[in-house]
């Protein structure tokens, strides 16, 4: 029997004794690569009670146990390093981008709310919110600094808001500028996701749209794992609370999770949302599989979904 260990190719007799042994050199990098090749495709496995330590010493690979274990540890650490380095997939970039987007949203909402209250004390008549307000304040500052031709000039003169001086103005203006740049960063990241989704997952991008598609990848933990999910999982992903309540037997099953944000479901009548969700989820799972394993855009997925959608809508009338 011919077996492979991490340090040698060994020929073993029927009775378990060693007939021939060809040890490798002690080069750790080479040994690590050999280990990974074996790990990916295990062949010629040593028999169950084979003792590699004694064998390595007898066949001259290592002088003693200490040297054996030291080489083994170095090799395994080197192999593990290599494997970790090769374990990063391109969808990781999308996942981080999507998560960064969520973080920015959270932070921006908090800051926008603060700016709304703060600037509202001073100029309640401006009547703007979030991004518009941030831009307005960053550009114009306090109400007394408004240009003559501004549409708010009149409202500013008769405002009932609190008076603020130049020092207040500088602070609030800088605060608004920070918030504006946060919104700008959000747009840049969004554009980045749109661009990369077209390359990474063209079918998912077409069926789900870049944002929802990227979010699905991020929730599944990667395109590969998304493609391995059954469509019923994709359908309720993001509705965890409702799903577990259902599994405990205390509620009916959720119709949709994160895919609710797709216009097909959001804009449909509640009565047909369940059907829509099923149809959409099955198209999404097919799309993610095509993306994960071929990567080519296949327009028939979207066409089939459209046909299914028409028949659901037709049937509901």
């Amino acid at each position: 029997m011919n077996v492979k260990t991490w340090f040698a190719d060994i020929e073993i007799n029927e009775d378990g004794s060693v007939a021939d042994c060809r040890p490798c050199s002690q080069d750790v990098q080479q040994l690590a690569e050999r280990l990974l090749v074996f790990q990916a495709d295990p062949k010629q496995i040593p028999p169950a009670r084979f003792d590699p330590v004694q064998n390595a010493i007898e066949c001259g690979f290592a002088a003693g146990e200490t040297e054996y274990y030291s080489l083994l540890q170095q090799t395994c650490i080197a192999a593990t390093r290599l494997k970790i380095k090769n374990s990063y997939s391109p969808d990781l970039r999308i996942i981080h981008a999507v998560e960064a987007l969520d973080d920015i949203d959270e932070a921006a909402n908090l800051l926008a709310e603060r700016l709304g209250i703060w600037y509202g004390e001073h100029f309640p008549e401006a009547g703007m919110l979030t991004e518009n307000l941030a831009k307005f304040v960053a550009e114009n500052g306090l109400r007394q600094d408004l240009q003559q031709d501004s549409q708010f000039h009149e409202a500013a003169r008769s405002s009932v808001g609190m008076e603020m001086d130049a020092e207040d103005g500088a602070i609030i203006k800088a605060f608004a500028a920070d918030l504006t740049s946060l919104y700008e960063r959000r747009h840049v990241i969004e554009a980045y996701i749109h661009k990369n989704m077209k390359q990474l997952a063209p079918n998912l991008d077409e069926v789900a749209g870049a944002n929802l598609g990227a979010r699905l990848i991020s929730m599944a933990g990667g395109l590969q794992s998304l493609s391995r999910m059954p469509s019923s999982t994709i359908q309720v992903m993001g509705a965890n609370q409702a799903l577990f309540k259902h599994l405990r037997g205390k509620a009916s099953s959720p119709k949709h999770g994160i895919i609710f944000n797709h216009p097909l479901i959001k804009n449909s009548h509640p009565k047909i949302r369940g059907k829509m969700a099923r149809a959409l989820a099955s198209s999404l799972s097919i799309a993610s599989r095509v993306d994960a394993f071929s990567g080519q855009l296949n327009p028939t997925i979207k066409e089939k979904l459209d046909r299914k959608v028409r028949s659901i809508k037709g049937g509901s009338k």
Partner: protein
Amino acid sequence: MKVKTFHEYIFTLQQGKKRFLATRNLSPGSQVYGERLVQVEQAEYRIWEPKRSKLAAMLLKKLPSPFTTTSKVLYLGSATGTTVSHVSDIVHQGVVYAVEFSPRTMRDMLPICEERPNIIPLLADASKPQSYANVVEPVDVIFQDVAQPDQASIALSNVQHFLKPGGYLLMSIKARSVDSTAKPDTVFKQQLITLLEQDNSKLELVKKQKLAPFHIDHLGVVVKKTE
């Protein structure tokens, strides 16, 4: 603090009415995961928190420890290496083969391996023992903490491949990851049947014990391979 031996190379430190489980630090001066270091008479001890380690909980719940200072151990599901580091303290003249599937957590464990000469890291899938069969030698103890739905069969396949006759399998069964809706007791029973009632598996239950209050819905199991 007063040091008492709990079991071979596992210690308890007594401070007033409080008693802590601890191991003697193999690489003195360095912490692995922010645990407390205590210096007593020229030796440094690392406090072993049962709430953070299923093995520590198993020992405190009076499951027998099969570890000796020269044990060869196969550790399945090493995660970031917190418990592995304590095992490495205990078997300081032996070896720990630490198998972990996730590259992300393995990344955190590598620095620990570089500090301790007796940990052999293996980034591999514990349900495929063939994939590391050309590295791991026959071992005295297999410890498993993998939280997978097919825990028992993963343990079994590793036992068949690597456990010496007379060796021990220690495992912590996490009911919630086998089946999140079934009753824990039903899950435990079913997992033990998978583990023990195989033809010619030659396994014998030594002791089982729930790990509450340290870990809820976990069962600690010690099994011996008879021949």
